[in-house]
């Protein structure tokens, strides 16, 4: 039993190995890029927007409102990164309905890469939101004695972000595997439906936690020492 899609090697040439995780990740990236390019190309300013336009607008406005509610303004500046995280993970979860597809988030490599991207984005976007001095200032807040703990928490929450997403995706595929062996045909379908919901909730949580981290890094400090 393959624990992660990393073990499924599709193509190998010398040191270059393409496993299932890389292939599906690039597939999703291509799908999202070509899909949005092809869809937005047909958008023109006319009286009645098309169905696709309205559907995409719902998604984009929902993401913008969520970012705005956390306190990041203007939300459009943070949308490219935080929105892409959600769109990538949500489509990775949604594509589970395709037979033979294994979500790239059930590989620790993918989730670690995303968590590292969040780890790097927090200082960059956080200093954009509140200034670089303010970002550095939140490390020595409320007392400079807590500096090591702030640095430690930066690292541990990145690990937690990666392992949480990986564990959720892994547990879903494990439960489906166990259900297939003891009660095939009907119960795996129910578990897959549950997994679809869990995948979406995890995509939302991952993007939301990244948003909260960025907002915390750029937070305006009132009445500090």
């Amino acid at each position, binding site marked *: 039993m393959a624990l992660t899609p990393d073990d499924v090697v599709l193509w190998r040439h010398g040191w270059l190995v393409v496993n299932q995780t890389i292939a599906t990740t690039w597939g999703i990236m291509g799908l999202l890029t070509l899909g949005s390019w092809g869809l937005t190309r047909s958008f023109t300013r006319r009286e009645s927007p098309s169905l696709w336009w309205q559907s995409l607008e719902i998604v984009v406005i929902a993401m913008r409102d969520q970012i705005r509610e956390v306190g990041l303004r203007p939300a459009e500046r943070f949308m490219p990164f935080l929105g892409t995280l959600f769109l990538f993970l949500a489509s990775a979860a949604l594509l589970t309905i395709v037979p033979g597809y294994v979500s790239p988030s059930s590989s620790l490599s993918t989730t670690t890469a995303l968590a590292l991207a969040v780890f790097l984005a927090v200082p960059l976007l956080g200093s954009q939101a509140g200034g670089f001095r303010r970002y550095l200032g939140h490390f020595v807040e409320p007392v400079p004695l807590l500096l090591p703990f702030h640095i430690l928490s930066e690292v541990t929450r990145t690990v937690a972000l990666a392992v949480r997403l990986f*564990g959720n995706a892994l547990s879903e595929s494990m439960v489906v595997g166990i259900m297939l062996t003891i009660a095939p045909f009907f119960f795996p379908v129910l578990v897959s439906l549950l997994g679809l919901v869990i995948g979406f909730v995890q995509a939302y949580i991952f993007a939301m936690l990244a948003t909260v981290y960025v907002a915390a890094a750029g937070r305006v400090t009132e009445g500090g020492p």
Partner: protein
Amino acid sequence: MNEHGWVAVASIVTAGLTMGVGAIGPALGEGRAIASAVMAIAQQPDESATITRVLFIGLAMVESIAIYCFVIAMILVFANPYWAARP
């Protein structure tokens, strides 16, 4: 029973214990969180969007403890470093 057998026994028993004991705390915590959130929504239905968002983020935090236990149980059973040469 040889050494590999004992490693297998210890790993499997520990994996079960990890999952079973490790799920108690997060389960109680999630129950408390959801109960409080439901009460808060019942008292202030207008704030349900904010309450739901905070609930989801909090549940993710609480749940990650159980997820760590699950990952460690999986490592013990499927990717045990002390069980390199499987007979």
